[in-house]
């Protein structure tokens, strides 16, 4: 089971006292999507993927996670660097142009 945190719905504080006093809060509380500059998107071909997890190991942003013995990508945080596609020996990951 993946314990990777994912983007949560963010309720903007209404008053100053709603904010935490210091920069300390429950770990993994992700509220801001951070993938706006991605031009190319890695797409996984599940037919070719054998679940070797090389892409999972190499992803510099930790956005690839294990799913049903294979992998999936959290596009809220993937920057589209392409390291996963480069590292995949079976060419199961292709970089496709991001549609806007």
């Amino acid at each position, binding site marked *: 089971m993946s314990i990777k945190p994912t983007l949560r719905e963010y309720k*903007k504080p209404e008053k100053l006292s709603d904010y935490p006093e210091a*920069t*300390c809060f429950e*770990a993994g509380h992700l509220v801001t999507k951070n993938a706006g500059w991605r031009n190319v998107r890695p797409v996984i071909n599940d037919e070719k993927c054998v679940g070797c997890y090389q892409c999972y190991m190499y992803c510099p942003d930790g956005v690839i996670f294990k799913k049903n013995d294979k992998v999936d990508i959290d596009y809220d945080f993937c920057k589209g660097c392409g390291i996963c596609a480069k590292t995949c020996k079976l060419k199961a990951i292709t970089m496709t142009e991001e549609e806007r």
Partner: protein
Amino acid sequence: MGKVKFISGDDAFAEGIRLARPQVVSAYPITPQTIVVERLSDMVEDQSLKSEFIHVESEHSALSCAIGASSVGARAFTATSSQGLLYMAEGLPYAAGGRFPIVMMNANRATALPWNIYGDQRDSVSQLDCGWIQVYVEDAQESLDMALMSYYIAEHPSVRVPVMVNLDGFVLTHTYEAVDIPEAKLADEFLPPYVSDNKMDLENPKNMAFSVGPADNQEFHLLHHKAMLRVADVVNEADTRFQSIFGRSHGGMVEGYRTEDAEYVLITVGSITGLAREVVDELRSQGVRAGVLKLRFLRPFPSQQIAEALVNSIEQGSAEVGSVVQAVGTLEKDISFGYEGTIYTNVNSALIKEDVHVPSYNFIGGLGGRDISKEDIRKCFSHMIGKEKDKIVWIGLGVEDDVR
């Protein structure tokens, strides 16, 4: 009363830290702070201080270690000086913004170039904006007492901001005085253990230093600023509590000497205050109504307290409001190149905000360890009394100033 020992300001600070029982000490030695690090390592070695003494390779690491320790609820201590403080600079707003109540001792020393190991206050004054509370002590006893009191202030639930305690290099760090070292039992009574929700806990993991984007970032700084504005009350609370337990007091944000009816007030910071008081006594005996106002804190800046001290002298000295204080002078071991002394800038801003309209002078001296003499201080007063035109004056120059 505890035990009276004949020790230096650095020794006294280390004694105060032993009484405060930090769980982590991470510091890198640098003149004139070195003795503090040596004493604390002795104390950890002989187990009179049960603390993790972390051997770091630099000041940057020293503060980083203290931040890490404080972020998981440990009481942490570090100490530095001059170039070391500047090397720590990246971590200073990190510690303050994280609201980690670290206490640091800084031995005030000149910054290079020209290279110099002697005392002035340009190191800490350059870091006024980093979000730390800044205290300046006057003698070895106050050094020890502020080591204890600083944890009380830093860890106070309404503050939670790190404190930098500044000792004038050599004049305080290396001068020996008789210092009363309180009993550990009383120190424990004064300083409760640090309680924090921030713990390393695998069941309830926390992020101790998160990112905040433009949509919410500014609010965190406003919260930090408001905590700083609550410091003055906590300083008074700490001092009252200290007095009730130890029978000694060091006052609040400022300390006035013969300012009640003074016409000429010299504002000072740190160890030079003692000499300024002597000059005031001398001038008083000659009929000059002189006074000294020592700023114990530069952050938060004691604007109101400065105004109150000056207004007091106006009210008590004369029936006519505004007629007594003729001039204020700020004596400082600092220069913000191309402008003036930074403490003077702050004092002037306070005077304007608080509607105190008096001529204000800046006396800059003591740079790179240059001695400030009685004669220099007499000249500060005569400059004010003479209502001289030059507002910013360099005192104690060794040669004629013939450069334009």
